[in-house]
């Protein structure tokens, strides 16, 4: 199974995401922002970082990169697509998922080990977890507060589209402690914390993050 990992100028966690794919047993394929070709991949990850410096709004500029066109098309057709951190922001800017990511309420970049509960295991990226499972993975971002209007929030809650929630104190001011959401179909997931940094307890707080990557490999086999 081939998983594409996109590099925009300013992307930082691309190598980590590729490593996580390999650890999960998949093959990672590097995708370049300026290349409007998916090179036959079965799924795509938009990794974390500061694409284009994130100067305007996070993800606002990268969503217009040439590679995004085929990605958006394929994802609308059901291809699994995971946006982590900056990738989540790109998904929101591209309106592939509702809402927006805004400045952390404490106004600081925050890097810490974060507990999450997995609340929806029916997506392409979460099927390896059990409903309600608590996991520990790094959170690191400056603009991670998930915002949307009340209607959208009610819809997300009602349809079970919140896939992960922060446990304990709200780290960034996200509405309803949202850490990650999915689209209606369950193939697109946006996640603020970083599972790719938690695939091995030697370099991360746990190996809990691996589940996201094994999930998609399972989903693709089906």
């Amino acid at each position, binding site marked *: 199974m081939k998983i594409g990992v996109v590099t925009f100028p300013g992307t930082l966690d691309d190598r980590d995401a590729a490593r996580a794919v390999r650890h999960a047993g998949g093959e990672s394929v590097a995708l370049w922002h300026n290349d409007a070709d998916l090179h036959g991949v079965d799924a795509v990850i938009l990794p974390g970082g500061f694409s284009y410096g994130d100067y305007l709004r996070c993800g606002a500029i990268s969503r*217009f990169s040439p590679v995004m066109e085929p990605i958006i098309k394929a994802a609308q057709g059901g291809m699994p697509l995971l946006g982590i951190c900056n990738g989540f922001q790109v998904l929101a800017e591209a309106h592939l998922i509702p809402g927006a990511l*805004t400045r952390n309420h404490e106004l600081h970049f925050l890097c810490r080990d974060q507990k999450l509960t997995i609340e929806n295991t029916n997506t392409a990226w979460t099927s390896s977890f059990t409903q309600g499972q608590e996991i520990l993975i790094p959170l690191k971002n400056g603009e991670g507060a998930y*915002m949307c209007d009340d209607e959208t929030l009610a819809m997300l809650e009602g349809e079970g589209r919140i896939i992960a929630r922060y446990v304990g104190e709200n780290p960034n001011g996200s509405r309803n402690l949202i850490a990650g959401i999915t689209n209606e179909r369950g193939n697109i997931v946006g996640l603020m914390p970083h599972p790719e940094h938690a695939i091995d307890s030697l370099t991360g707080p746990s190996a809990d993050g691996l589940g996201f990557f094994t999930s998609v490999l399972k989903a693709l086999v089906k």
Partner: protein
Amino acid sequence: MAKIVVDVMLKPEILDPQGKAVAAALPRLGFTFATDVRQGKRFEIEVDGDPTPAQLADVEKAAEKLLSNPVIENFTVRVEK
């Protein structure tokens, strides 16, 4: 050479932590004038000559598509001398 200014502010219903932080810092420095503070972005765009209506329409489009995120922000466009 004219300057087109685009102001982008968070929608009133969206929490503005930066504005809140400024509002909280002012009284600590002895400034008591503010009842509320909101912080937004200001873009100064330079164009050659006086902006044409077509250019201004383009700026509106760019403001909507790129400079702001309509999910959380409002914007205004105006010409400044």
